């Protein structure tokens, strides 16, 4: 066993980790996929279905007419609507009827989007608001006020 043999054996042993490190090195030059949430947010698909939003018309009236078709279509039975009648003094939506109470139980909701499909006025839409975690069950029952888009004059 000569010195040269020793050197060859050592080189043989060093070769494997170096090969490995070279792969690591090649990856370190590639673009990063990790996103620094919540400082950075990944853009969602245009069709992403997350939390519901109740829309308004441009004049500020609510699109929702309180018809309960969303609640009827909901396979998870997560929606509760209580309707009331519009009056001249208190006009909430066009036509005769509006939703006095509108609640969605987000624990039950399976984000299937049937409510959006059933809605005759496109009042309810599933938007890309996905931060729904909470530590209190009753806070996960979203009320109409929480889901309504702000009225134009309030902006």
């Amino acid at each position, binding site marked *: 066993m000569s010195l040269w043999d020793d050197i060859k054996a050592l080189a043989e042993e060093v070769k494997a980790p170096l090969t490995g490190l070279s792969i690591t090195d090649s990856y370190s030059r590639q673009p990063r996929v990790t996103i620094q949430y919540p400082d950075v947010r990944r853009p969602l698909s245009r069709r992403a279905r997350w939390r519901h939003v109740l829309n308004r018309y441009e004049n500020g009236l609510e699109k929702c*007419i309180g018809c*309960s078709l969303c609640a009827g279509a909901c396979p998870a039975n997560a929606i509760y609507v209580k309707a009331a009648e519009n009056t001249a003094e208190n006009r909430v939506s066009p*036509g005769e*009827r509006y939703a006095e109470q509108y609640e969605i139980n987000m624990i039950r909701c399976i984000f299937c989007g049937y409510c959006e499909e059933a809605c005759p006025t496109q009042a309810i839409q599933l938007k890309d608001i996905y931060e729904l975690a909470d530590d209190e069950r009753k806070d996960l029952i979203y009320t109409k006020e929480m889901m309504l888009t702000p009225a134009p004059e309030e902006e």
Partner: protein
Amino acid sequence: MAETITQAPETVNLTIDGKKVTVPKGTLLITAAFQAGADVPYFCHHPRLKPAGACRMCLVRIEKMAKLQTACTVPVSEGMVVDTLSPEVKQAQQGILEFLLINHPLDCPICDRGGECPLQNMTFQYGPGVTRFIDEKRHFPKPVPLNDYVSIDRERCIQCSRCTRFQAEIAGDGALAIESRGNSAVIAPFSLDGFQSHFSGNTVELCPVGALLSRPYRFQSRPWEFHSTDSVCSMCGVGCNIAVQTRTNQLMRVNSRLNEDVNEEWTCDTGKFEQYWVNSEERITTPMIRRASVLKPCSWDEALTAVAEAFSSAAKSSSNTVAGIGSTRTSNEEAYLFQRIFRTALGSNNIDHRMHDFPIRPMETSLAAIGEAKAIVAIGFDPKQYLPVVWLRIYKAISNGNATYAHVSSVDDPAVEAALAVGEGAILLTDDHIASADLDKLTKRAKSAGAKINVLLPDNNSWGAILMGVLPDRLPSLQPVGNGARPKFEALWGGPVPDKPGLATWDILKAGAAGDIRALYVLGSNPVASFPDRDLAASALEKIPFVVVQDLFLSESAQYANVFLPASSFIEKAGTFTNIEGRVQPFGAAIRPVGDSKPDWQILSELYARLGASAPFFGPADIAREIAHSADKNTFAGDRR
């Protein structure tokens, strides 16, 4: 067998869609078609109304007739060959629906009828799917209130005339009519002061679109959202079968249920619209006990213990010093338990429910028989006002059988004489205010003439209270307290039952005012407001040292209560009511008891346990079983469908 049927003279043979059917002569083609299993769409047809042919939806092809015919107006004839499925008929159905929808707004999402609407269903099943009408639809102000209960949305009306025909043919008041012609035809009240009828609510159920609408139910719920429970109306003695429709533990709507022997498929407006007191915010839902002359909320245990102690200590000194005033509105089970507690645990017969003395006499005919009478006289009361659905039977007799009818104030009225002259088939109706001398006189005359007398008791369970023994001198099934039936009840109840008749309501109140009553239990009644001598009732309740009032609201009598026990309404519990005919009808619990309130039977059962009951009752069915054991087959058949 088939041979004999086909040769019977009163039947007719015809072929519908290749299927042979045999129906009685005079049957309308649409009815025969249903019997043959054919599906003919319709809006204006109704089996209880006369044919109108107004909506044109039921067009069918009849062989050898030039044009399509409306099946709802054509009586069947021998050898008719009918086709309901041909492309020609389909095209006609689509055409009619397209016409009907020209003026009908497409506001189904906000329409109270949406989801249970015949027009919506027929359009889905038979409609064309698209319209060629692109112009502006007809417009009317909407919704227009017609009376306190019903409003009309004229844009939705398809002029089927079901409502006007109901008012004219069934209710007999013609309160609605079609005004104007053609495109401007609208349904309008006949009278200038609105839709004056006791039966306006039925038109809401009859309307095949959302034109006639219930005002209290407006926008309250959608038809697929509420839960419907079979129940019996609690507003009068007729005992109409109703469906109580509830959502979020609240009453949304009352609809009628079919019962050919009682209400057919109708209700009165009181029954349909005046039941919303069950949702009232004014209901008391916690037990209360009087402390320092003010009623203060307390726990059930505290309230029931106070009641049990007061009654048992009063009964220990003398069983004559306790008394109970029951009600004509509690269920049979509750009335039975109430008298059982008084008779066994307290050893007292001082128990009654009557607010005045009246003759206890079952009806001599059934309710349905009134509709077949030849002459009817209502003596001393207006059936339309007090027992509205009885009026529908009377009007049926008037309109179908040409019966004579009068409502008079005295038994000596010539109209009574005229009805008695008819003899067999004459029915005299009277209420519980008839003097017994008058009734005896009338009975003698009616008996010799062959006429029948019906004494109609006003409240929903008047007969139940009587037959369950909430009377000072009668045990259940009208058995006198003194006679041989008592040992049977003593064995059943496991204790002695006093054999001397107790005090009637008026005697209880007199004894109370004189200071002889130490504890009074007022169950579901309100003597201070409904006893004829109100001053006596008020002074009695003031004088009696311990008064328990069990009710839904803080009534006039509850102002004198030492303990107030909040009871549940009839839609929050199950049980049975006995109607004016003595028909025992079950009703189910539609919602949970509101707040801390409890059903009367449960309050009584828990009180009974504190007074030393051998075994508690766990539910109304438990009590009903015992009643069925002890009662006559005639008085409590235990008919729990």
